[in-house]
């Protein structure tokens, strides 16, 4: 039996890797390997009794032991600095199966030797039971494995309810999932898009203005026409109607005109109906007072934030480079805002 379990475990493990990506093949192989490994645990650990009132002890223990094999292997892999990936898992399980198999075979041989010695020590005609020694006949008993017919009946007792449950449950779940459902609440959202999605600091709007990409999404709502508005400093500077189709995602750009070069932060707000997105911006003076992100740089790569403009770890690249005088001037300008 131990050899058969070893064979099942090895075949299952060997087949799992090539079967990767094909669950219909990989699942039964993996389950077979898991159960065989669990059964090897119960064989390697001595003294597990035969069937209890509910004939589920050995099968249940094998299932439990097989199940916990995977986290134990994963923990060992972690301790060894290996990732929890298919190849390390299979190798780890194969090593474990080999060790368990060796222990089980050793135990089987010892048990056979003890039984042989017991038989040899007592003439057969003087023994009450001429067959193999029953389990628990001595204080140091071992596993008493039931005859194959009882295996078959126990297997049927496990398999039949599982098959029936999977059939009934599968049909019920499928029917439930395919049934009609109440409509979920719809939404309309707006988000900064492309390079603008990466804005993490005030933007400097160049003299020629700035093109800002935005994304408008609609789901679960009908087609509707809403005002698309651009506000700068709270004032509407541009507005036009925009039709938002049902269940659509639309990318568009909004032109932000040049801002006064007063060094102040101006809130820029882009809205569709009641939803809005936005950022803070400054007007472009001939010389950037603090070297903030410029729209000119931003426009060089639509959809991708220029590397030069990206501040490492959230800090502004210009801060610290600007001369002290300019920073003082900028601070003074801000104080005037």
């Amino acid at each position: 039996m131990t050899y058969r379990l070893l064979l099942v475990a090895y075949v299952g493990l060997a087949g799992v890797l090539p079967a990767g990506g094909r669950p219909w093949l990989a699942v039964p192989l993996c389950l077979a390997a898991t159960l065989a490994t669990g059964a090897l645990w119960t064989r390697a650990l001595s003294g597990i009794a035969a069937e209890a009132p509910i004939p589920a002890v050995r099968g249940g223990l094998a299932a439990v032991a097989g199940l916990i094999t995977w986290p134990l292997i994963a923990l060992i892999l972690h301790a060894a600095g290996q990732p929890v990936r298919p190849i390390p898992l299979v190798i780890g399980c194969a090593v474990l199966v080999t060790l368990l198999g060796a222990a089980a075979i050793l135990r089987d041989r010892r048990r056979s030797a003890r039984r042989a010695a017991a038989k040899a020590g007592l003439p057969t005609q003087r023994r009450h039971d001429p067959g193999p020694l029953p389990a628990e006949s001595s204080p140091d008993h071992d596993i008493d494995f039931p005859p194959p017919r009882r295996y078959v009946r126990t297997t049927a007792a496990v398999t039949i309810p599982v098959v029936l449950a999977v059939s009934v449950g599968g049909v019920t779940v499928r029917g439930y999932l395919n049934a009609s459902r109440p409509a979920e609440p719809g939404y309309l959202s707006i988000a900064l898009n492309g390079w603008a999605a990466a804005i993490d600091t005030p933007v400097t709007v160049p003299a020629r203005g700035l093109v800002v990409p935005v994304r408008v999404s609609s789901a679960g709502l009908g087609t509707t026409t809403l005002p698309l508005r651009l506000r700068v400093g709270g004032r509407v500077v541009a507005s036009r109607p925009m039709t938002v189709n049902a269940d659509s995602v639309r990318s568009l750009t909004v032109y932000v005109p040049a801002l006064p070069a007063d060094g102040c932060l101006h809130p820029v707000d882009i809205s569709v109906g009641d939803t809005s997105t936005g950022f803070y911006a400054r007007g472009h003076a001939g010389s950037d007072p603090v070297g903030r992100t410029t729209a000119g740089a931003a426009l060089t790569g639509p959809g991708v934030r220029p590397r030069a403009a990206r501040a490492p770890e959230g800090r502004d690249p210009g801060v610290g480079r600007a001369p002290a005088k300019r920073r003082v001037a900028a601070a003074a300008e801000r104080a005037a805002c």
Partner: protein
Amino acid sequence: MSAATTSPMIEQQDGRDPGPAPRAWTGPVAAGIALTITGAAGATALAVAYRQAEWGQDGAFTWFWAGMLVFSLPAAYWAVRRDSSARLRLAVLIGYACFTYLPKLLRNPAGPLYHDEYAHWGQSQDIVLDGVLFQQNPIIRVIGDYPGLHATVASLATLTGVTVWHAALFVLILAHVLLTLGVAVLAGQLWPDPRIAAAAAIVYSLNSSFLYFDTQFGYESLAIGVMVWALAAALGAVRSTGTRARAGWSAVMLLLTVAITATHHLTALWLTGMLGLVAIACTVLKAPARTAWVLTALAGVSVATWMAAVSPRTGSYLEPYLGRALGQFSGLAGGSSGSRTLFSQSVAPWWEQYAAFAAPGAALIATAGAAVLWWRRRSVTDPVTRACSGAMLLLGALYFPATLLILTPSGAEGARRSWAFSYLGIAVATAPLIIALLERSRRRISGSGALLLAACALVMVGNTAAGMNPSYRFPGPPVFGADTRAATPELLAASDWLRETHGRGARLVADRYSGLIFGSYGEQEPTTGSESFPTYDLYLAKPGRPMPPALLAQLRDWRFEYLVVDRRMAEQVPEIKIYFETNEPIPHDGRPGFTRAQLTKFDTLPWLIKVYDGPHIAIYRFDFDSLGQRIRMGAR
């Protein structure tokens, strides 16, 4: 039957029941046909119940319990019926376990839904993606230290190519079946009567966590099944007379204990406590106690080592559930306010609520009866059975003080979570009483049998109602402030947008419900605040007033990138009365805890860039460099 597990109390024989050998197949065939028909009817009724709830129609609770009981009661009958064979009982218990998983399976067959499920699903997903254990979890911080379930699910998913959710379903259903069988095996270690074993499994299935909590994608769902088998192995070791058998059972127990320790803190602690109870009972009742003490010590060392070396924060995580609850309980005893009102504003029908109050009473009567039976049989029972069943009685007795903790806000959760463990004692201790009552009548369906089935139905209904909110049990339209109905299309779209445009792993501040979605589907790292990191103060700050500088410094130092605002917090009261976390300093007086101005003030703060907006959800990006800057309104 092995001699090591036989008890002189009841004569039983080699796993087979006495009965007429000819026509032995009629019982299994009749049971198979009957239970298949009732199972199909029950499953259909459950689906109807959920559809009624989804569409907001009346009758969901009635359909649900009709579906549950139409299968459960016949299954209980076949499991404890005198003429059923051992294998028929096994088959019935497996079918029963599979059926009792169906309510949870139908609740969310396609993905996580419960609060903890989001955390465990995300944790397993991270292992599949990165191949690394012990990653920090943003939703429940301690679960990263207990990777047993996540490693199991991730290993199966990565080996077979199925999704994490489907691998989890397989593990959870298997664990549920093993839990049911494990209780029977555990009872079988004490009383080698298959009827008692089956009765114990059925009684255990009546506990409040069986249908929903211990079937969810959570670490307890796997750990508790393994724990029951570890306890059965421990009892096997305690009973064994031979060294080899004792060593074998002990080795199995130790293996399972290590797995439990790496899977769930509370289960590992309960296992150690249960072993301690067995050891104490063996000592007091003069049964061989050395093995029990050794196993208790081994389990204790395993748990203590893990908690000291791997997860030292477990204590601080668990402390509020017990320490604060005891404080509140003593406050209640002293007459102070602060108690909970049970079923306050619950949509559960009156009969469910009454059953919830009656269920502990029924359990008390049963436990008292079991104690009387234990006392009357103490002289004819072998010492180990007497001691171990006494330990189970003590374990079951813990259920009753825990029911009182349900009256305290902090203790309610801990009380509910303890019932799955203490009910194990009730189940194992009362099973002999049930069979003794059934034995009094020789009729196939006796009055006491019908009464017991009715009591089972009452306790199952009541315990389930007491253990889980209706919003967890039934589907329905999206509701603000309900974990199970948090995943609105808008919120899912917002979390998808953030992941697609900004990648995984960004730290963000959010409320409880947004945090669930952003931390799981969104693959971000949300925080929902705590006493030491009160991020909810951002939301609570009055418009025009400065934010707490210490909090801003913390957010900046810890590299938080985003703030998520759900404006429904200013319009509605959360269904479970939590905005961020259980101990938040936000009044719950039936009115929304925030004003609209508190939540829209972020639109005018220059250190917050509004990168995304929807009807309710807005995402802001922190720009701490712009703190203190002033903005100019009215351009040009």
